[in-house]
């Protein structure tokens, strides 16, 4: 109603509804680039986290050795994933957990929904989890008549806004606090929520916003009998799961309900508890730019009188073993979802996550999405200038540029481009032809020589993809005399 709208501030339009998820990246990116508020929010937020990360990473003089250690542990895990998965199952089961195996998203969702229903619950509270985003658990639950409530503050904002996450760690990174205030006022108003709802006078003060979320979430925590989580790490040696978080909402979900279902990608396995030492130094510094995160929960099976009694773990494949088969591409499975690569990526900073059209955006998404869903994201490996900033910050040393190039070399190529590349190679592989081409370009561009540059390419070049160059850049004109002519003259 119009009076409501006036009292509640302007309606916040979910960014995901504006940026077409199914469009090719360049097209979706163009839409995102045209959203000034989104761009300024992203530039501000990524810039802030980038600086924080650089500070705390700079404090450690063994940072490079930690990265090497993490990469080595992950490579070891990938080499013996089957045995580690079975070891984990054995130890978790012995400690009182039920371990399930899910080949794909459908199986994982069905297992989770069945467990929740058998526990007599109709709603679950959720710990922030990329695996459940990946399998679209919330959507599946909704279709099954179950409700899944996000409890991580940023996930809550996204869920309330009926939007989609735009960042792995900070899913609401594309909103500023004015917009968050508006979302809260509209979705958590007293009319809707009763006495516990937020007042229309809510300010954009972070403490006030956090308090509004806290009041809302507390009711959820107290009433929920089942929870769904993911895990940052799964320790094979002990059968333990580990969740690393900042807000304490995870701790609430992991300890208060009777039933806990954790969806865990099989690549999250670590051989031993001691391996956590390496990752617990790398992850908080790389993700939130903190030396240490506020809450780390470790649980091993079920224990009477201490936390959930029904502990279920769903080990999820969903394309991972296929990725494992690719010797170059498999390093993407080392990812610990810290988001450092997103925060330093000049492409991500300007487009945000929605343009990638996948739950994993940014540089890691550009190598993970096309591998997890072959044939569906062939445009993503090209969504990078190969600047290498991602590789530089990756705590587990995933050579993202190497995998991007590798995937480009696998993928299909447009016919026109293939022809042009073939022609270029044919010329460049023959020195005499190359020299002829250089001379031809010199003569062809003679009319522009006095000006020194071209604003537009001449026909028929203007009809090719090369014309995209002059969208924003002038093109220099070939010189009167090439280096090779000078050299020849000099050698005489």
């Amino acid at each position, binding site marked *: 109603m119009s009076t409501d709208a006036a009292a509640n501030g302007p309606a916040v339009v979910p960014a995901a509804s504006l940026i077409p998820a199914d469009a090719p990246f360049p097209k979706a990116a163009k839409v995102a680039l045209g959203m000034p508020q989104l761009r300024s929010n992203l530039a501000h937020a990524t810039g802030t986290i980038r600086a924080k990360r650089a500070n705390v990473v700079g404090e450690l003089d063994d940072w490079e050795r930690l990265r090497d250690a993490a990469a080595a542990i992950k490579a070891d895990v990938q080499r013996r994933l089957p045995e580690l998965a079975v070891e984990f199952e054995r130890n978790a089961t012995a400690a009182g957990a039920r371990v399930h195996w899910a080949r794909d998203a459908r199986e994982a969702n069905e297992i989770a929904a069945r467990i929740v229903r058998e526990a007599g619950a109709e709603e679950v509270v959720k710990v922030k989890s990329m695996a459940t985003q990946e399998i679209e658990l919330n959507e599946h639950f909704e279709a099954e008549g179950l409700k899944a409530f996000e409890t991580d503050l940023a996930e809550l904002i996204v869920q309330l806004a009926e939007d989609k996450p735009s960042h792995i760690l900070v899913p609401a990174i594309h909103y500023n606090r004015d917009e968050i205030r508006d979302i809260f006022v509209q979705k958590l108003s007293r009319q809707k929520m009763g006495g516990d709802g937020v007042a229309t006078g809510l300010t954009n003060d972070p403490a006030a916003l956090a308090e509004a979320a806290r009041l809302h979430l507390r009711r959820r925590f107290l009433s929920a009998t089942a929870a769904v989580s993911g895990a940052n790490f799964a320790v094979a040696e002990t059968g333990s799961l580990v969740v690393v978080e900042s807000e304490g909402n995870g701790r609430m979900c992991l300890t208060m309900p009777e039933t806990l279902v954790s969806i865990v990608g099989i690549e999250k396995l670590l051989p031993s508890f001691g391996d956590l030492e390496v990752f617990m130094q790398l992850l908080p510094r790389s993700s939130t730019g903190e030396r240490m995160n506020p809450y780390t929960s470790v649980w091993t099976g079920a224990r009477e009188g201490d936390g959930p009694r029904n502990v279920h773990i769903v080990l999820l494949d969903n394309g991972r073993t296929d990725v494992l088969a690719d010797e170059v591409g498999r390093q993407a499975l080392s990812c610990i979802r810290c988001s450092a690569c997103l925060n330093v990526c000049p492409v991500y900073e300007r487009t945000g996550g929605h343009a990638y059209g996948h739950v994993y955006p940014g540089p890691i998404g550009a190598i993970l999405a096309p591998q997890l869903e072959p044939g569906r994201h062939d445009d993503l490996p090209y969504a990078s200038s190969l600047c290498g900033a991602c590789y530089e910050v990756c705590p587990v040393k995933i050579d993202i540029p190497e995998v991007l190039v590798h995937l480009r070399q696998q993928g299909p190529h447009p016919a026109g481009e293939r022809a042009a590349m073939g022609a270029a190679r044919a010329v460049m592989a023959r020195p005499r032809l190359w020299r002829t081409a250089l001379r031809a370009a010199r003569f062809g561009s003679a009319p522009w020589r006095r000006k020194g540059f071209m604003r537009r390419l001449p026909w028929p070049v203007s009809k090719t993809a090369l014309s995209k160059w002059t969208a924003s850049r002038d093109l220099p004109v*070939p010189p009167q005399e090439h280096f090779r002519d000078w050299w020849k003259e000099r050698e005489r």
Partner: protein
Amino acid sequence: MPRVGLFITCVNDALYPETPKAVVRILERLGYDVDFPAAQTCCGQMHANSGYREDAAALARSFEQVFADYDAIVTPSGSCAAMTRDQYPHLTGTDIGRRVYELSEFLLDVAGTEDVGARFPHTVTYHPTCHGTRALGLGDKPLRLLRAVEGITLVDLPAADQCCGFGGTFALKNTEVSSAMLADKCRHAAGTGAEYLAAADNSCLTHIGGGIARLDHQPGPRGPRPIHYAEILASRA
């Protein structure tokens, strides 16, 4: 004395004769005998990075033939040097890249000199190009050489480590994102008030220079002139 072969790169071959000329002058000034094998064309980077592995491998093999007999191959391009070092081993199984030096590597690590006797009385800002800095690990090598130039005034480029948005075919395939990155780079470059913007790769400078030239047709401050740092090192003005 090592047998030094000059790899000028296809971009300089087509557009920028002054850069390889500068390399020749610097190396000869230091007493090296430089050769330019005329059969050279392209290292294959565009093909490799655009996903055309076979074409790239063919060009890599030509490169290896042309430069087989040189002890050192010097090139004024961080990204072409990185191509031979990082990608050739996977494409053709060769390690010729170990003999390829980006100019600043050759001057500092082989010739062992920081001061090449240049004079350039101008304000210069330096953009560390991505492949040179990150893939090749040049660090501040080109800057160290520039600092030793007589009369030069170096000014810091804000957000220098951010990519200019070139990325080879990325500039064409993702023109809008590339242009947004370029706009920021041009704004930072113009803001320095420098006369010149120096870098170790003329491909990146074509991009930034093309953006600055486009800005020049519009109101506002003129940006710095793009220049390969080799031309500064060769200068005795």
